[in-house]
């Protein structure tokens, strides 16, 4: 028996949002009289962190601490329309809608503060700690809570805002495919090291080294969650997963997690990640959406690494031990592509 090591690379980009546009999202922001804010969305948090990232975006825009904001997702009676959480559109589309709503609410809050401080609202700024003060004169200050209370009980203003973000629907030219797909792209490069057993065709991923460009990492821990879990899923797609193991034959389709194979906690490989941030001109604070693209480069990188290790091209996913072994047999043995 022999174990052969190989290394493969892939580089990809990924379009953010429904690519023809025409996919609006709305947000509503309002404050309680004590300056604590609610954001109402009909967008979905499936684990990607919608509630959390929009909360930070709202707090940043309003100029209040994040703990002064809570996000409520997905009640159709209170949350305004949103196309949904798919196509990596959540952060980008919903984030922009939340910025618009928060700006409007902030403007009212500053007007209320201006009336209390008897200054021009344009001269006010927030410190992000719950205070509003005159630019250049920090002592002339009022808390966001006091400003919102005054708006509610003295001035009769609603500290609230509405936001929508819509990229107009693009047409597609039937002949040339000319279109205006998306407004920004995330990027990634992935290098995977594998070890292939030339007697069984088994492939083991030894390590992954990657660089992901995500616009701005609005919350670095949430980005890390996506990239780590997404790369694991990519490795899973590459080597394990299918609902039809003998496609296009429908037979032997798995019906449980014993038959539907995914790498277990004993199969995971070290993954060293570099995160690059080139802000998207139209993204919320430059954010794109790392959620979908993170799996994509792993599939071809693994396939290329398997070829590098034993000289077998498996062009049909998943790259099962059987396909690798058949390839090795067909060429009369492993053919490592690199010395050593």
């Amino acid at each position, binding site marked *: 028996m022999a174990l052969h090591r190989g290394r493969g690379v892939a580089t990809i980009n990924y379009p953010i949002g429904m690519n023809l546009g025409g996919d609006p999202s709305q947000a509503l922001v309002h404050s309680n009289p004590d300056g604590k804010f609610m954001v109402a969305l009909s967008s979905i948090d499936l684990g990607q962190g919608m509630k959390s990232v929009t909360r930070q975006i709202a707090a940043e825009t309003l100029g209040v601490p994040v703990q002064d904001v809570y996000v409520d997702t997905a009640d159709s009676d209170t949350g305004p329309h949103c196309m949904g959480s798919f196509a990596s559109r959540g952060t980008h589309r919903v984030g922009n809608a939340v910025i618009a709503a928060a700006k409007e609410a902030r403007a009212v809050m500053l007007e209320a503060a201006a009336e209390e401080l008897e200054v021009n609202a344009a001269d006010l700024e927030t410190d992000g700690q719950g205070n509003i003060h005159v630019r250049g004169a920090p002592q002339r200050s009022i808390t966001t809570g006091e400003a919102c209370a005054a708006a509610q009980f003295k001035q009769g203003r609603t500290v609230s805002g509405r936001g929508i973000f819509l990229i107009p629907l693009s047409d597609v030219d039937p002949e040339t495919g000319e279109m205006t797909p998306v407004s920004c792209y995330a990027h990634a490069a992935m290098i995977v090291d594998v070890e292939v057993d030339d007697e069984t065709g088994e492939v083991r991923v030894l390590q992954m080294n990657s660089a992901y460009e995500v616009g701005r990492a609005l919350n670095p821990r949430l980005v890390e969650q996506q990239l780590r879990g997404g790369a694991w899923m990519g490795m899973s797609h590459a080597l394990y997963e299918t609902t039809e193991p003998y496609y296009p034959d429908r037979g032997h389709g798995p019906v449980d997690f014993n*038959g539907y*194979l995914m790498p277990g906690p004993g199969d995971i490989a070290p993954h060293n990640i570099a995160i690059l941030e080139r802000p998207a001109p139209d993204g919320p604070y430059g954010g794109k959406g790392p959620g979908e693209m993170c799996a994509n480069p792993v599939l071809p990188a693994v396939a290329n690494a398997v070829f590098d290790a034993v000289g077998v091209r498996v062009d049909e996913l998943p790259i099962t031990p*059987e396909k690798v*072994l058949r390839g090795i047999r067909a060429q009369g043995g492993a053919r490592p592509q690199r010395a050593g």
Partner: protein
Amino acid sequence: MSLNVSSYPDIAEAARALARDRAARYLGGGTLLMRAVNEGDQGFSTLIRAPRGALRAVRGLGEQVEIGAGVSMAEVLEDRSLDFLHEAARGVGGPAVRSMATVGGNLFAPSPYGDFATALLALDATVARVRDRGTPIELRAFLAERDREPRAIVASVTVRRPAPGTFRFAKVSRVKPKGVPVLCIAAHLPVAAGRIAGARVAYGAMAATPVRVEAVERTLEGRTLDEAGIAAAVAAAVDGLDPPTDAIASSWYRREVAPVHLKRLLLGRNG
């Protein structure tokens, strides 16, 4: 068909009730039967329960050890006297499944399951069913008629206690640590005067039930455990076998890699 659960004070009564009702099933650890219940299996309408206490003993009988059918995989793993079975027991599910799955239940596990039964098969296990008042039958015979008669209650399983270092078990699975086997191999390789005497080799997931592979056993007889000594056994590794195709692996793949894994097991190069 709506479901009834009947409980009996002792296992013998439960066995009689089971024999009376073709639409009844005995509930052991539940890992197989409760899944069928959850999925609305229309093949049975009664679950029969009885206290498991009587079936939970592990008794040493000189060269042999008797394991109650109600002993769970977790209990096997905690019993030092059963250390030779620990690797096979660890192959069953995750910890939660192992605290439920029983020795008796594993005898009924359909392919590709049944790692533990495969290990027992290589240890010349005999099976005592409650209804034949403890008269044991060979595990091979039990497995042969299992799917025709799924309603037996197993009381206990008795195996030869292998001499240290003579029993080997290998499970090949794609997902770690918990994975359904591509195949598993159990080998009992007693050595007399440096030569193998009375070899037993069994496969799991290579047929509808765990199977002994006599062709391999014969060719190992009187040989030594080295490249030359096992060559004939490896060559005969899949003689007469037609392994199943399932979501885990194809029949072709199982045939192709069984000899490889057998060789590695015999040479002690697995895992």
